[in-house]
């Protein structure tokens, strides 16, 4: 009894147990962070807006996205995934969400950004209900921790409207 191997085994199991404990504590400490992110998205141009041959509406936008997400980062944050979605209502569906742009923010230094871009993913409605449509642009984010629980939240920006005619 109490050989070299048994003592080595005991130290490995106990140290891994404690590692799990301190990682849980690290995850728990994220709850003390009260983030105050801000974001603003401007539609600087409607590049084109047309009906596809199959009847779906598609629009191309130029977006001006600025956001300050630095307060989301804690010592336990690995990265933050962020995406802008267009959200609108149609008679068939109460909520349609279309992701227009996304990015991975790897560090706090990159979390205050400003970007001028056309939509990265196509803005297509399955139907032809985009003309004159009121829609929201929502900045969603997922905070990916080094250990533990993932957090997600969003900022909804409303008051956008698509043009009444194709162009």
């Amino acid at each position, binding site marked *: 009894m*109490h050989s*070299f191997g048994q*003592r*080595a085994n*005991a*130290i490995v199991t*106990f*140290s891994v147990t*404690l*590692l799990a*404990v*301190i990682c849980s*504590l*690290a995850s728990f*400490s994220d709850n003390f962070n009260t983030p105050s992110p801000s974001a603003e998205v401007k539609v600087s141009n409607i590049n084109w807006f047309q009906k596809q041959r199959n009847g779906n509406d598609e629009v191309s936008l130029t977006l001006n996205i600025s956001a300050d997400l630095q307060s989301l980062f*804690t*010592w*336990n944050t690995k990265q933050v995934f962020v995406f802008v979605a267009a959200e609108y209502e149609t008679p068939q569906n109460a909520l349609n969400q279309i992701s227009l742009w996304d990015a991975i923010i790897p560090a706090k230094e990159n979390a205050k950004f400003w970007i001028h871009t056309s939509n990265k993913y196509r803005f297509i409605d399955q139907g032809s209900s985009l003309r004159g449509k009121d829609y929201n642009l929502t900045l969603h984010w997922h905070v990916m921790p*080094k250990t533990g629980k993932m957090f997600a939240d969003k900022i909804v920006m409303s008051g956008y409207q698509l043009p009444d005619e194709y162009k």
Partner: protein
Amino acid sequence: MDWPGQKLAEKLMEIFLVVFAAVAFSVGYLIGSFQTMLLIYAAGVLLTALVTVPNWPFFNRHPLNWLDPSEVERHPKPQPAPAPASKKKSSRQK
């Protein structure tokens, strides 16, 4: 490793690891670096292994003192008393 040595090794292991975990978490949290926490803890585990896993001389300071064989010869093992079973039987029959 003798008996008090085993007890000491186990105690030392638990105390060392708990203290290192507490220090690692506190330092990591205070300077805001997860990596520092892991490095401190890893160093602590290595140090603890080095102290408590090998059979160091200070775990062997209470050797068991076995009796000399000549002592055993002078005090022979007592023989079992012959046939106590018959007595029991008679007492039960009463």
